[in-house]
């Protein structure tokens, strides 16, 4: 097992004093699904947004510690954030399709990265749609507006869109929170396929989903990392009382 991401003593506070992280240290292995779970306001999304520096858009009061991806500290202000974000795909809780066609959504990131060859773009569209298990449903209408897709299809399109850039890491922030069980199943199944190639970090929308998908799981509570370990053992035999209480539904 190789650690793709090494988080060392990461602390962060927003200017408005809301959610924050306190001294998080965590090693995330490559080519596996790592689940960050816990009650709302625990810092899961904040941590995700640190990984692709999306927090740069938010006002952060103070941040300390480091995040090493392949040994490189990505919190370094001199790092090329654009290049970083191309290496790290992100899927948000609400499916946000850009006001473009289906294929326009998929090629957006590549075109920004300077890819002009039609063949390469078409290839990326087909490959990413297949990976996200959406190809069969949309192959005949790639030029239709993406908004015409159903909610579940939109979310798989968002997944495909992040895959089109061939990232190394995929961040998913409650990607199935607005989806019906069938669509949720499709997304989860896609993740199980994807983890063969990609490092996946998932904030699930329920403990059940955490249990179903996690190779590794980290339990967050009020900005602290309470417990971290292999999914199987953490969900069946948690070491911490607080983890057990949450998993068994006694709070949260």
């Amino acid at each position, binding site marked *: 097992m190789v650690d793709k991401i090494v988080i060392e003593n990461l602390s962060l506070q927003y200017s408005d004093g809301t959610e924050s992280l306190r001294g998080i240290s965590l090693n995330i292995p490559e080519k596996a699904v790592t689940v960050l779970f816990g009650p709302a306001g625990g810092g899961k999304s904040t941590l995700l947004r640190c990984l692709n520096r999306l927090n740069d858009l938010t006002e952060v009061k103070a941040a300390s510690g480091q995040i090493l991806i392949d040994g490189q500290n990505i919190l370094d202000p001199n790092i090329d954030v*654009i290049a970083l*974000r*191309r290496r790290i795909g992100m899927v*948000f809780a609400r499916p*946000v399709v*850009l*006001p473009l066609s289906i294929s326009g959504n998929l090629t957006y990131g590549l075109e920004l990265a300077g890819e002009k060859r039609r063949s390469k773009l078409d290839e990326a569209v087909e490959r990413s749609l297949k990976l996200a298990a959406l190809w069969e449903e949309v192959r005949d209408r790639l030029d239709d507006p993406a908004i015409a897709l159903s909610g579940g299809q939109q979310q798989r399109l968002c997944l495909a869109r992040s895959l089109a*850039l061939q990232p190394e890491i995929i961040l998913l922030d409650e990607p199935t929170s607005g989806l019906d069980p069938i669509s949720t199943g499709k997304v989860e199944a896609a993740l199980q396929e994807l983890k063969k190639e990609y490092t996946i970090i998932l904030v699930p929308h329920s403990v059940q989903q955490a249990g179903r998908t996690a190779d590794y799981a980290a339990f967050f509570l009020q900005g602290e990392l309470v417990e971290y370990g292999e999914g199987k053992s953490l969900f069946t035999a948690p070491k911490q009382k607080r983890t057990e209480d949450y998993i068994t539904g006694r709070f949260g």
Partner: protein
Amino acid sequence: MKRALPINRHLAQRTGFTIISLMAFATVVPIIAVVIYILIQGLPAISWEFLTGFPHNGMRAGGILPAIIGTIYLTIGTAIFSVPLGIAAAIYLSEYAADTPLTRTIRIAIINLAGIPSVVYGLFGLGLFVIFLNFGTSILAASLTLSIMTLPVIISTAEESLRSVPQAFRTVSISLGATRWQTIRRIVLKEALPGILTGVILGLERAAGETAPILFTGAAFFLPRLPHSPLDATMALPYHLFVISTQVPEMPIKIQYGTALVLLVFVLSMNLIATVIRSRARARRQW
């Protein structure tokens, strides 16, 4: 004891509705009345010669071509200065500026700029463009003056339509490796464009119909020929209307209303274009 029937409340509600719809109707009546009145009075004056000829016989006969052309020049001139500047300012305020005392001051200034009487703009234009910058009484000076007057309208409507583009589009675009500017150019501007265009047209429409700002800066009482360069003065519809209504004795009333009709059609057709753009964009909008 008898209970009061609820019918009274219905009556009150119905009365309220009636009053409100009467008021709504009352606001429309004057607009329609003006248009119909100008149409009836002005239509007899409209002819090919009226639209394409020069005034003669001390403006008591002939056409209003130089005034029509002048107003078109002034509108284009105003657009050249105010549209790029206004949109750039709106992009800065909506997409880049943080909420600081400076940007708050800029916003307050823009709001106040919109409230300044147009004759004050005229006087300012006279001082700055005509005299200090030595542009003379010219299309250039008048266009710049009208631009300053139009800017607040363009900036505030453009900023509003930029802000109405969902924040999530920006976040997603950035997360896909776009820079801020790429996000603005490829997503935000594209979505906000119909709203921006509407604001631009409404602003220019106001400029086209104004008299006071061009009075001292570019409008000519009478010119025997069309302007040749931006440094020439020009006739313009609103000012021409003012002139023939107040400054020329024994003016045939038909020509006054004909001129008013042409100005009205010019401004209303810009309005119509804005409305069409807006409703088309609404129908096509994906959020």
